[in-house]
């Protein structure tokens, strides 16, 4: 091994990469956890919503002239990319809920799970058909110089990573404001705890579930654009592994727990980044699932999972 691998700077750099990736995983994990909270179903189409979000961001970028001939300032372009992608993904989430899950609301739990896999395949192959199988590149280096960023000692945090981190934090902060500070957010938690009691309080469950899907899917769309901006590559099967990792992050943190999803995402990102830096990039996907198995063995409810509440 050369000196670079052993240096503190190298470790710091990997940490930054891991946290950035973790922020993306956390945003995906939040969608799983929110939906699981209200419906107790695993929305396995969620990863593909993220993929669609990444494509929406890409096409908005191209539509605005692409990185090299942008018709608007770069900051405005990035803002529009996020806004349109989040809105589009959110609406897609609402449509998926309405057609794939709502009709199965009172069926055995296996039914919506199969429906979810069906939607996932539909979105993947639909994207393949519409956008072709080629890998698109966000090509951000041509509008944000790679050298721009913060230098801390030997660690460089490039502009895009800063943007992604800050935005992920803002979105998570906004989410917790929504969940804790609005009636719809409170209603969502009330439904997660006791749906019948929530109905007795006059809560329109369908409406709240719709909002939950919108918010969760919008976060996935944002994550898709972030991955495009930092890791550049966008393709129709990108949602499969990302979805699986977001799901793993949610379960590691404790499915149904919002802080858990954030923690799980960041842990997963760091674990992957460190593995690929110090062991081998080939193991970085394996470590995700190793972590899942380890946490499930030690804390089956996940790190911040809710203990079963004893009703008095």
């Amino acid at each position, binding site marked *: 091994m050369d000196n670079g691998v052993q240096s503190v700077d190298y470790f710091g750099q990997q940490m930054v990469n891991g946290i950035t990736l973790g922020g993306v995983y956390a945003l995906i994990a939040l969608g799983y956890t929110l939906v699981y909270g209200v419906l107790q179903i695993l929305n396995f189409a969620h990863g593909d919503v993220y993929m669609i979000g990444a494509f929406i961001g890409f096409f908005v970028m191209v539509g605005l002239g692409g990185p090299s001939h942008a018709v608007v300032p770069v900051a405005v372009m990035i803002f529009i990319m996020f806004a349109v992608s989040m809105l589009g993904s959110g609406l897609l989430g609402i449509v998926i809920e309405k057609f794939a899950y709502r009709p199965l609301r009172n069926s055995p739990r296996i039914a919506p799970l199969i429906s979810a896999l069906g939607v996932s395949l539909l979105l993947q192959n639909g994207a393949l058909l519409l956008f072709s199988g080629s890998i698109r590149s966000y090509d951000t280096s041509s509008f944000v110089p790679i050298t721009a960023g913060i230098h801390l000692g030997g660690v460089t945090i490039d502009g895009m990573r800063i943007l992604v981190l800050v935005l992920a934090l803002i979105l998570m902060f906004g989410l917790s404001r929504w969940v804790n500070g609005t009636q719809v957010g409170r209603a969502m938690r009330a439904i997660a705890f006791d749906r019948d*009691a929530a109905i007795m309080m*006059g809560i329109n469950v369908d409406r709240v579930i719709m909002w939950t899907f919108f918010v969760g899917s919008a976060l996935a769309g944002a994550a898709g654009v972030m991955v495009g901006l930092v890791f550049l590559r966008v393709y129709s099967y990108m949602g499969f592994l990302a979805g699986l990792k977001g799901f793993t992050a949610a379960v590691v943190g404790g499915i149904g727990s919002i802080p858990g999803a954030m923690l799980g995402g960041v842990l997963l990102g760091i674990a992957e980044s460190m593995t690929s830096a110090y062991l081998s990039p080939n193991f970085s996907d394996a470590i995700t699932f190793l972590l899942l198995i380890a946490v499930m063995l030690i804390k089956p409810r996940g790190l911040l999972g809710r203990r079963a509440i004893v009703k008095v």
Partner: protein
Amino acid sequence: MTIQDPAVKETLLSVEGVDTYYGSIHILQKLSLEIKTGELVCLLGGNACGKSTTLKTILGLVPARTGSIHFAGIDVTKKSTPDRIKLGMAVVPENRRLFAPMTVLENLQIGAYVRGDPDPADLDRVMTLFPKLAERRHQLAGTLSGGEQQMVAVGRALMSRPRLLLMDEPSMGLAPRLVEQSFEMIAELHRDGVSMLLVEQNANMALSVADRGYVLQTGRIVLTGPASELSSHDELRRAYLGR
């Protein structure tokens, strides 16, 4: 609006000839009852006689197969539960059903859901009614004592400024001392002019606060009348009052 003789109160809730079923089991049979504005009416009966089902039917949680339910002059027979709550019903459910992992304040805020954002004046009113809750507003509801949980459940129901408060077995699972407190609270709400339907197994207590009562037996109303009359009724005394 016409000015009415205050002695002739308007009907707030009327249930007419309702039958309900759980699957093929016939529960309520041609059930009719009525509550006028400002009245405290109790619904008495033993285990599994249909008391809770009556309440669920009024709320729309169980569909009425025949008959009709009118609330505040509107036919609500086919309306969903949230729609009925929006029209002014509120419920203190059996076993209270608080949102245990949420704070006292959040539970109260949820109670105001149909009104949009909770009105600070309503919160103040509930906190004045139950000063204990003001102290514990940031505590998780699941960690409160039984009596305090009862206050949250009632306060939560009052947050929507209901025209009719439906109470399902408020004395259940409470220590005897708290049962008494609970009924004092109900009497106080009644004096404040809140219309109430009180579903109770504890007939003694219920009749001591109610204006009128209905007695339910295997899904039928078998007896009705002013509370004072019911509490001296021989058959009822033998069957439910244990005197």
